[in-house]
């Protein structure tokens, strides 16, 4: 089964792929992406570089998450200069909180 962390990683990578064709999900188990080190990059690095594209990313991510996690994901502070991996860590914590 996927852990909360695996699920957070898949959700964030998928939302990036919806917001930017610069990002591809190559395999889902194990998760592999293009760019290969997606979570070490910032949103601005992958074309999610203004408020419109960040809003598309956020709405995509919220759509992919379980209902109880949505409010937390909706209020994440996001800028184009945030490292994407930080969002994975936070979404993991939000899912874990619901499933604790």
């Amino acid at each position, binding site marked *: 089964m996927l852990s909360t962390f695996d699920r957070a990683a898949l959700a964030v990578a998928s939302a990036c792929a919806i917001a930017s*064709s610069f990002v591809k999900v190559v395999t889902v188990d194990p998760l592999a992406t293009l760019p290969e080190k997606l979570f070490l990059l910032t949103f601005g690095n992958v074309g999610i570089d203004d408020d419109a594209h960040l809003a598309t990313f956020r709405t995509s991510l919220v759509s992919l998450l379980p209902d109880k996690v949505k409010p937390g994901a909706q209020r994440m502070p996001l800028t184009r200069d945030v490292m994407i991996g930080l969002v994975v860590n936070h979404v993991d914590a939000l899912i874990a909180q619901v499933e604790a």
Partner: protein
Amino acid sequence: MGCDMKHISLTLVVLFLAASVPAQQSGSGEATQANPYGISSLHFKSLARERHILVYFTAQTAGDRSDINPAEISIRFLPSKKRIPQNSITGPNPPDTTASSPATHFVGPFGNQVLQIGLIQDDSTRPEPGDTQVEIAIQRIHFADGKLAGPVTGLGAIYDKANIQELVDLTRKALASAKTKEEKNQFVGLGIAIPSPASSTSGNTDISFNRDFYSGDLAETARRVFDSGSVGFVLKKGNEEKSDPRHFEAGLKLRKVFLLVDRRALETIRRSIASGEPSPTAATLDALTHLQRNFLRGIIWDNGSHFEGDVKEFKLTNVSNLVYDTVVQAASVSRGFSGQTGFWNFRLMPVGLELGHNLTAEQTANAERGSLARFKTGAQVNLHYQAKGSVHRVEFEALSVHRYLFEKENAVDPKTNKAVATTAGNKNWFEADLRFFFGLLILKNRPGLKVSYQRGYLPPTYSFTKSFNVGIVFESADDDTSGR
């Protein structure tokens, strides 16, 4: 450039210096060690249906599976010193059922810098009452640069239902503390306005400040109406008649985003992410591929109100209006080019309305003091290019907005430069920024060249603006966006 440059003025724009945060934090928001080849932080999650440990290394690893053989990993809880038996640690491919345990694996998109250790859900992996920490020792780790380190050890917190909120708060804090472009950028800017006036200093000021808030912080009803909002202001001001848009606006904006994607494909991915699903199948990947087909992937609807004022001689009240503003925008997906070393995207604003009323008009008794109604449409293009393996970078942004004024509004008389005239009809605004950043480092800052062009009319006084600015900007070379 052929322009009569009588004066070159220096405009020092001191913005934000990145504040140093004394205690290092990892991406997960936890305390770290300074060892360049070791464990940065780790934590153990004990949830209702799964237990796992996340280990964050200080550097990218080679992702060598032999390093994470359960026989190479030693785990114990503290203070009880209870050890987890090695046969309770899962391998990389545990049985694929909803009841099975998560796998032990490096996380590729993190550059294998993160390791998940999956644990079997039984009494052997349950912390004793009073245990608060977990200690890990891994016999050896191959790092990506060829360094072999070992044993690597680390100590981290145990999170369960009682304290999981702490992890939520830590990771949110790490997100909020990541440095923004404004913090990194433009330590000092030097601008040359062309043409420059015969006397006095010249230069343009473009300041935009926004504070966002989110419907997730509010009641459920609010979430249906909007996703996010912002309060802030925009100031566009020049020191010379033909380069002075005299534009200030401050207000509130609420935003709702509608995704233009196949709902069934979205639901397929959502099911893979939802709890209780076994590992995702090829259908998930197919759904993702399907979602990536559309060029336009979101419709954004903004609603808000703002105050707009004529910025002149430290006043805003020569002409001021209160305006309700509603705009629909369609955002394209970002497309890569040149072997994915660059990308471009655009957004269309097919329709927008500005409705409002004049508040003040102090420079003439014959001013328009009634209602105002404007139609607007526009587009924005962004382009970003950075050659592979290079720190040289080019960024281009262009924005065009066309307004049609249904009612007469107050405007600047070009002869007197006072807001004593009126205008109506078509009003265009265009602005473009081109920035080049170079690899050269000067006092830990990366110099760049910025070229800006503005032309047209902005409310509330529609002062004709035509300016071309060349500037040098210094971007902080501190590229840390990891929340440290």
